[in-house]
């Protein structure tokens, strides 16, 4: 499963801090990070806090990753300016909403603008097409960010996540 594969990549890259805003698409990966003793999962009250967390961790010599849903990308725009000006490395893993098969129209504007907004603020965007491509893409994002001091986002397509309705989401959360 792709969440397990992402977690293996994060552990191999010596990621120590995981900032996250709870999200159904990231549910499994968040649980894996929470139960990994080499990582500290930090729940955020808004995605913007994760940018400061990552910057502070890097000042202190630790690597981190930031998990959010596409709606959260809108909350980090100005903070990404700091990442660019200071050349902080940053890896953001974004679960997409508002694209293929979306049932909630309120998710569509930000989902459709996610790539544009990230690129406008100087973040390199990787988008794996299938579940099998996710782990290699995260691996590449980690290397680009931490070897080249870049801000990199990996967008996980809604088609791969497979949440199609409120009913499905309720079932997944209840599991």
């Amino acid at each position, binding site marked *: 499963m792709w969440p397990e594969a992402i977690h293996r990549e994060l552990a191999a890259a010596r990621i*120590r*801090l995981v900032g996250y805003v709870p999200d159904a698409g990231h549910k499994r990966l968040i649980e894996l990070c929470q139960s990994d003793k080499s990582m*500290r999962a*930090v*729940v*955020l*009250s*808004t995605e*913007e*806090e*994760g*940018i*400061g*967390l*990552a*910057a*502070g*961790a*890097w*000042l*202190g*010599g*630790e*690597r*981190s990753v930031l998990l959010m849903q596409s709606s959260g990308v809108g909350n980090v725009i*100005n*903070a990404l*300016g*700091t990442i660019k*000006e*200071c*050349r*902080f490395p940053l890896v953001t893993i974004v679960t997409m909403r508002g694209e293929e098969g979306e049932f909630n129209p309120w998710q569509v504007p930000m989902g459709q603008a996610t790539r544009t907004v990230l690129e406008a603020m100087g973040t390199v965007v990787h988008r794996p097409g299938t579940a099998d491509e996710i782990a290699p893409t995260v691996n590449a994002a980690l290397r680009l960010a931490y070897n080249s001091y870049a801000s990199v986002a990996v967008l996980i397509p809604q088609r791969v996540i497979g949440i199609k309705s409120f009913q499905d989401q309720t079932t997944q959360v209840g599991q």
Partner: protein
Amino acid sequence: MMQRRDVVKQLLENRGELLVIAGLGSTAWDITAAGDSPLSFPLWGAMGQAAMMGLGLALAQPQRRVLVITGDGEMLMGLGSLATIGVQQPTNLSIVVIDNERYGETGMQTTHTAHGVDLDAVARGCGFKPCSKELSSLRKAIHQQPGPNFAAIKVQAEKIPLVLPPREGALLKARFRRALLGSEADSI
């Protein structure tokens, strides 16, 4: 009422190995007036992010003491971060708000704290440890008291000459990491 530069200067006296993040605006100029250091990270942007940068740094460097000095307007823009820090309970982190009840860089408009909002009470409600507001005791708490510590210090609302740190973000980051991490800064 106390003057902001005097408060910050006293808090940073003999700072030793203390790591310092200063929020956008007057507090960045205040820590520079007290003596620029590579172990200071003054923010020229990122309003609302100072406390979270302090958390990231405190978690990455559990053996070092970390101080965030910021203004009331900057703290108000990141109030949620107090809740986030309260969950993590970093014992080595202190936040001091230099509270002049004004947005000093934009024309001295009043902030919420001029109208009754009590930042100490918010921080306490989020799980921060209260500190003495007497400056020598507060300085001691910053270095020794198990945190997360929080104190808002009321100061005079005054326009005073700017004392500017280096402006380039990449330079400020690189000098901080070199000073803290030594040659390992390049191989992490």
